[in-house]
């Protein structure tokens, strides 16, 4: 009988199946396609952030400025779209470029000052966010153009009267981001270089990896995804609020780590990170369906984070022990 490897991914998958089974037994609505699609849609923005954070973590850095980057690029884009009537493509390109530029600033500062990126990104996060709120006075932009806020549905499946699943823009954007990130990280030379840099910066340098170039890609890519996530978030809620994204940074980092990305770099896979997000999404949705008081949500989520992280850590340790025994 083939042994199933006890990796973070398989442990997470087992936990997800277990939770899904429990929720389905408690409320059959859980395992219906409309519910599952809605669940994925609600976590689209988190997954887009998570993909970028995953790349940074693999490169051996920690970036917590992405929420600030998303807020800034979202606001700049909304400003140009409402005040100057910029068309969609131009606005999206603007959001992406602002995001990329702010990310690249992190890369240059990290590289030139030779400090770990969490230091730089804590500083830049505070600068970006505070300046944004100071300059805008914290005021929201409500009158977004129609092309931005009109829901775009790519496919619609009807099951029963009133029960339907819509594959909409946030889901498609998220899927594209996940696939592109996976391909870059698992199948290109650039991705290999990111893993090499995160695994051992010194040997990566000696193997001819251009460190600054890779870092600009890594932090710029997260910035670009933050720009996209900002656009998608505004698309979903129909307005731009400067403080809307504040405070979610550490949750996203933790979700990526829950999905198997390592804080010290060089380790992690895109599917793992997706499973990490999925675990939290299922939990939130399932608790809602079985009628747990929303005040009690956080308590249960806290317990599950503690439980699932301990479970994956123990699985990893057991896997490491098996390796040791096999080596003997």
């Amino acid at each position: 009988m083939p042994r199933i490897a006890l990796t973070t991914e398989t442990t997470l998958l087992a936990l997800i199946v277990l939770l899904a089974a429990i929720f389905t037994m408690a409320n059959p609505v859980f395992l219906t396609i409309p519910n599952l699609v809605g669940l994925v849609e609600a976590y689209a923005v988190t997954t887009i952030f998570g993909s970028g954070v995953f790349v940074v973590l693999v490169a051996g850095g920690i970036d917590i400025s992405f929420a600030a980057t998303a807020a800034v690029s979202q606001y700049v884009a909304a400003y140009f779209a409402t005040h100057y009537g910029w068309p969609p493509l131009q606005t999206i390109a603007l959001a992406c470029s602002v995001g990329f530029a702010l990310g690249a600033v992190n890369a240059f500062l990290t590289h030139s000052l030779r400090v770990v990126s969490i230091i730089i990104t804590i500083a830049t996060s505070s600068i970006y966010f505070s300046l944004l709120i100071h300059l805008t006075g914290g005021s929201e932009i409500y009158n977004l153009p129609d092309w931005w806020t009109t829901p775009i549905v790519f496919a619609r499946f009807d099951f029963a009267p009133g029960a339907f699943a819509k594959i909409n823009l946030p889901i498609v954007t998220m899927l594209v981001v996940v696939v592109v990130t996976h391909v870059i990280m698992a199948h290109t030379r650039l991705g290999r270089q990111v893993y090499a840099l995160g695994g051992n910066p010194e040997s990566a340098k000696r193997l001819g990896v251009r460190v600054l170039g890779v870092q600009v890609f890594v932090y710029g890519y997260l910035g670009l995804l933050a720009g996209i996530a900002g656009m998608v978030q505004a698309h979903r809620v129909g307005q731009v609020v400067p403080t809307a994204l504040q405070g979610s940074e550490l949750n996203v980092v933790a979700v990526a780590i829950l999905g198997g990305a390592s804080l010290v770099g060089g380790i992690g896979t895109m599917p793992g990170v997706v499973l990490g997000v999925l675990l939290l999404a299922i939990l939130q949705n399932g608790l809602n369906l079985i009628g747990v008081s929303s005040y009690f949500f956080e308590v249960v989520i806290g317990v599950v984070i503690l439980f699932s992280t301990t479970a994956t850590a123990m699985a990893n340790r057991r896997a490491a022990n098996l390796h040791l025994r096999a080596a003997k």
Partner: protein
Amino acid sequence: MNRGPEPEQASPGLMTGQINGIVSALRKSSVNNSTLLILWPLIIVTFTVLMPGQFLQTGTAQSIAFQLPELGLLSLAMVIPLISGGLNLAIIATANQTALLMVWIMSAHITADTDPAATWFWIVVALGSGLALSVAIGLSTGALIAFGGVHPILVTLGTMTFIGGLSVYLTRGKTLSGLPDAVVWISNGTIAWVPVSFIIFCFVAFGIHIVMARTATGIRIHMIGSNLEATRYSGVNTKQSLILVYVISSVLCWMAGVIMMARFNSAGADFAQSYLLISVLAAILGGVDPYGGFGRISGLFLSLLILQTVSSGFNLLGLSAQLALASWGAILILAIAIQRSVEWRRTNVDRARR
């Protein structure tokens, strides 16, 4: 890597000297105290020039001393786990929950016509329960980290969510208020012009400094932050030390909770959320290595003085609090840049001498 002698072999004082020597030789910290000692006067001079006769007053010093303890205690609570190679994301949640418990006990038992003896009794009961709760939180967090083998960022994300969620659930998101005057005095009162809360903070910070720099426990915590496995193999009970780290951190949160509830005359599950990342910023500006092993309480103290001086200066200049926050980020980058340029010049001078 050799990080110094075994804890049992040398007297603590000698050992710290050696460890500090080795540390400075081995690793350049992102910011060290001399950089901060250049930066702080520079900031004071700048504000004095900008506002002649207005900035350099006892009133400014007093307002800085009033504001510092809250962030100061929370930063201390963050620094100790950071030095041990971890992180405590639950500091705000812990401070809020202990404050909620204390306010709940006091508001339930103390009214305007409670006699002084009973009032003091319930104040002591409330403070004691808060302390007990913080120790319990610290013990369970520490045990999860030590025995579960999970990275502290994940464990404390879990405890943060759990503790915060419990506070929200029990209070239904409402704030609790109603404190006796004696407790409010902790944050409003002064002894010879010096705010009581600042005096408390100084004593606590000095105590933590002694523990971290002069005792075997402190050195074990530094060693764990440098290399957990190596420390374990050198005969240190790392599990016990890790649990202690989070107990100390949580007790400091309780102290921050006491000062916070006295300051706001209330407690709530969602107070002071923005302090979480700022406490990390203050720690790093104080020269604490975010990956563990290195950091001094004196550096943190200087960093807090700098940050509060800047925010007081901005306030006096009539600039927004947001701008002050942005400048905190800029100061961190500036401090690192100064540090790097000093190091760069020093190596060049050394080369020229040869």
